């Protein structure tokens, strides 16, 4: 099996690493870099718990090889908080009770981050469409939608 040297920027920090060809991006983040904020849910491209933002687009990191990310700029849930201050989305999830068990939350946050970076003031329908690839088994989505609306209304 081939090994590859990759360079990625994660949350603004450059990383260089050697990875196996078959290493998934989510395993690279969690196991090789110890960044366990990104969760593994279904591991079959359904649930979206592993969502990270790659070159400004939210994608499922269980369905991408680490080597495919060579040269990419990645944002994970660890990159949302700045200088001890929560990101407006995190603030929204706190204020609007956007989580119960919290397992889907990193993926929800990153999908919402991708949405808000393209659409400043999304409608409720646009929010629901955007998160349709992220499963939450606790909240019924109502408070997640409210959380994203909360963040969209804040200055960013």
């Amino acid at each position, binding site marked *: *099996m*081939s090994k590859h040297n990759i360079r990625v920027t994660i949350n603004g920090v450059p990383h260089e690493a050697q990875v196996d060809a078959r290493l998934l991006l989510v395993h690279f983040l969690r196991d090789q870099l110890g960044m366990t904020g990104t969760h593994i849910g279904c591991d*079959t491209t359904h649930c979206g718990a592993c969502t990270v933002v790659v070159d400004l687009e939210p*994608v*499922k990191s269980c369905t991408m090889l680490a080597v495919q990310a060579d040269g990419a700029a990645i944002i994970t849930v660890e990159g949302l908080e700045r200088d001890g201050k929560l990101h407006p989305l995190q603030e929204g999830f706190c204020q609007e009770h956007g989580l119960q068990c919290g397992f889907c939350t990193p993926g929800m946050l990153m*999908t919402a981050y991708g949405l808000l970076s393209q659409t400043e003031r999304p409608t409720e329908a646009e929010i629901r469409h955007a998160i349709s690839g*992220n499963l939450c088994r606790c909240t019924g989505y109502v408070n997640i939608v409210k959380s994203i609306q909360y963040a969209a209304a804040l200055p960013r």
Partner: protein
Amino acid sequence: MIPAPFDYHAPGSLAEAIGLLQQHGDDAKVLSGGQSLLPLLKLRLASTAHLVDIGRIPGLEYIKEEGGYLKIGGRTRESALERSDVIKAKYPILHDTALVIADPLVRNRATVGGNLAHADPANDHPATMLALGAEVVAAGAGGERVIPITQFFTGIFSTALRPGEILVEIRIPAPPSRSGGAYVKLERKVGDFATAAAAAQLTIGADGKVARAGIALTSAGPTPIKATAAEQFLLGKLPDGAAIAQASKLASDAASPSADRRGSVEYKREMARVLTARALAKAIARAGGH
């Protein structure tokens, strides 16, 4: 889940990619968006010794109108179709399709060429491309050749692509005025494969009668199904309720779905009829027929 080991190649040019595919033959697979292939490799339903990633080859992502065709680069992402103004304005059938493929996160990586070349009869683009009368362009060592979409799907998960060939472009003949199309899919939830789905693309002539009809079905057999009898029936007919009803019946007769947890054979065949009727009605409305 972790795929079985493989060697990974990231060629920087089409020629290099074709060379790698020729060198490794059946031991190589093409990686485009990877949203079907990587899950299969992870589940170990598929394995490969060499993965040839075409993701770094420049010039394979575009949507352009040229020489009477809409041309879509093989590696164009589904999310690009979803956002394209040309697609929204002139090819609503493709916009319908892009919106129901998997989910928005998957569509950020999944590609149109991959959706066709994977040849899963439950994939959505095959039916829409059959309805549109598309052609695909395959690039190999001997240059490019054009394959009509009607000859592209040769069996379950198999296509007319030869080893060493890459699907580089999809060409759709620009529909004349008074044309319209629609894709209607029944799915249990976002991200699911179709229980059944129907694609319809029609042109209405100056006499108000159907001048061209393309109808195809998803999840209706071992390959995408072109409902030829239904298409033939509609030609020269006024696109009214009776014609839609009969064409939909003929389309469902062409379906040979298999039973699974999404439904029985009888249910899926009935859904093929219902969805064809809905797709036709929508296509006719979009063509300005009713």
